[in-house]
């Protein structure tokens, strides 16, 4: 996905997302889970691809997010579904830092 397809939106400040944690943010009607791993920020869909649950309520470990509802795990950097019951990958979104602002790139048709 190139920058021309997406529009970046400021969704949080760097102080709001702790290392190894996840935070729910929204751009328009898109709920996004924002993570900090080893100093870098990542964004995926917030809603689990298996059942309706907010991944921001889940558990972050070893670069993975575990859904709070049924325990499906996803790779935070790639969105890849790693364990049952999920079999569909999460969408990921590009993240940029400008000063203390965290910006997430969302396809223009969704923002």
């Amino acid at each position, binding site marked *: 996905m190139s920058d021309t397809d997406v529009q970046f939106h400021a969704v949080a400040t760097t102080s709001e997302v702790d290392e*190894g944690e996840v935070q729910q943010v929204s751009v328009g009607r898109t709920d996004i889970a924002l993570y900090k791993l080893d100093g870098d920020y990542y964004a995926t869909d917030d809603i689990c691809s298996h059942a309706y649950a907010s991944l921001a309520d889940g558990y972050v470990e070893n670069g993975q997010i575990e859904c*709070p509802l049924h*325990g499906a795990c996803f790779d935070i950097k790639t969105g890849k579904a790693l364990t049952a019951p999920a079999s569909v990958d999460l969408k990921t979104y590009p993240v940029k830092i400008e000063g203390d602002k965290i910006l997430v790139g969302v396809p223009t048709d969704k923002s």
Partner: protein
Amino acid sequence: MADSSRTFVVIGAGQAGGWGARTLRDNGFEGRIVLIGDEPHLPYERPPLSKSALLGETGLEDALFWPRSEYDTLNIELKLGVSATAIDRAAHQVTLSGGETLGYDRLLLATGARPRVLPTPGADLDGVHYLRAIADTLAMRDDIAAGGPALVVGGGWIGLEVAAALRKQDRPVIVVEFADRLCGRAVTPAFSDWLLELHRGHGVDVRLNTGVERFEGDGRLARAVLSGGETVDCALAVVGIGVVPNSEIAEAAGLKTDNGVVVDDQGRTSDPDIFAAGDLTNHPNALLDRRVRLESWENAQNQAIATAKAMLDAGQPYAEIPWFWSDQYDVNLQLIGLPQGWDSEVTRGDPADGAFVTFYLKDGLIDGAVAVNNGRDLRFARRMMQRAIKVPPEELADTSIKMQALLKQR
């Protein structure tokens, strides 16, 4: 023998059978996979049957794991509406209900469990239901639509979920429970009291220490006589008094059974070419240090996945902290562990606020916990339990400290 010329047969197309078959293919098995199920449906998950699907709020197709096209893609042969009637271990052959025989190289038993039948006179009347399968939910839906008071026999999870669903439609509901408390096998006395208040608060007439003497009606249920002698009107009765494992076919084949099919920590039965997973199995759990037979969504899925890998000779010991959930009214309940002999309890959050976790501690370690509207903290607690991490009770109770922080600092 080349992998591609082998046949693996899965008997039972529920949660365990579906995941077992899928896992074989996902992990590179190139041979023939045949999935046999006695219901006419594609593999589906059962939790919605007693909740949203019972009231028609969600469609039954939502409960299917995967659409039919997925089985085509995975090249899994489905034999639905067919049951296996015998296993000939010497011939490596299964006999099906139509008389057909099917050879296997390896076999996965995932026949699950069935509702325990109430031996009460009149329990065969129309309007007396058990709830386990899609057909049961459909039959109950019709009787729910017809209106009238309902009687729930058994104050366990199924009974309480059905009671909650019926109260959502303002149906008068009586729950009779033979024991002196609700969900006595699963929760502590204090939590049974909490459940009792929850249901009474929603208008359910809960009668403890009470059974049913007989059901009465002219072909169709009209009333029931309770153990105290009282007669109550009911147009619908739902019996949820536990399940029994479908282990007869295994027993007849001479496999070791004892409250289910006895397997090791990779789902192997006493026959090296026969495996078993799900509600059916009596299996060892290294984390709990005892054998268990679990009736749970997660175990059916994960034990089947672990067992399918063992069928491919790539198994790892399977052991997880048991996890269960239930939804009743606006309450999501989750439980971890099977606590036994805990020496103290500590609660995080205020039960009056409707969201809390109660931990059961044994020698300073979490032996189990129950969460009301707080599944997130329970997931952290489960990790603490898995890793035998000791956290001082006063820190567990302190909601100003995140559970995640308590876990990570140790």
